[in-house]
């Protein structure tokens, strides 16, 4: 089954790319932005079909490779 993971930078970590995107959007006329933060999205199709087990596997992947927990948080989403 497909499990998705969203990796985002922690609140206190500077996100220069997000800042530039914010400025560019602002320049395009999107004036009502508080902040833009850029993150990563992964879709992992695992062989496991039990949702809670599959989520656990992907969570383990997040901890060991997909995210660096010093600067990033992860969020697991079950897609199908």
């Amino acid at each position: 089954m497909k499990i998705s993971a969203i990796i985002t930078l922690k609140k206190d970590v500077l996100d220069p790319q997000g800042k530039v995107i914010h400025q560019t959007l602002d320049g395009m006329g999107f004036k009502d932005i508080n902040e833009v933060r850029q993150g990563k999205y992964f879709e992992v199709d695992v062989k496991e079909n039990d949702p809670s087990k599959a989520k656990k596997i992907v969570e383990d992947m997040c901890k060991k490779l997909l995210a660096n927990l010093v600067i990033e948080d992860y969020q697991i989403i079950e897609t199908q």
Partner: protein
Amino acid sequence: MKSSVITFPGSNCDRDMDVALTKFGFKNKMVWHDDNELPKSDLVVLPGGFSYGDYLRCGSMASKSKIMQSVINFAKSGGLVMGICNGFQILVETGLVPGVLLRNKYLEFICKNVFIKLDNKDNPYFKNLDKDIFEFHIAHNEGNYFCTQDQLKEIEDNNQVAIYYCNNKGQTEDQFNPNGSIKNIAGIFNKEKNVLGMMPHPERMIDQSLSGEDGSLFFKNLINNIK
């Protein structure tokens, strides 16, 4: 003295490092990332470059490659492991040294000479060096050193900062910080000081007619310290 330089797919400073180590007396071996066993070494170097195309996070894939388990064991048993530039990024991803390297603050790839100041010489890398300020070269996109406040306190309490960015007089004001690193940190030790990660490239400063010789001083001293 025996050294090993690990080549990952995308490493591009591995041969420069080989030339530098050999020039100053190391018997160097090049080791492929997919090997299991590290040759008998007094020093292991993770070179600069763009291992695995910098995919996911710089150094993240390389830190999981086969040879790295041997390198981690070697480091944990007290062996000297030095990571330069991408090698530093690989070291932080293994957790051998604390912190991470983020995208440079002003989002530009920086390629220039910088001055660095040694913080302390009570370690096998800098012991017996006559001077404190060196001119090395940096070339990176992700060299912005970051760690949590708790980590920073621990790093400072244990004297783990190896080098700071500075000017030619050793001043470490913000304006001499090329990439936004916390406290101008350019290099970090592990607690035991046998693992060193730094962004600047000493191997690019080993020829008077091309670059200057601050790297020569570093390597000459390093091999004498290991002997």
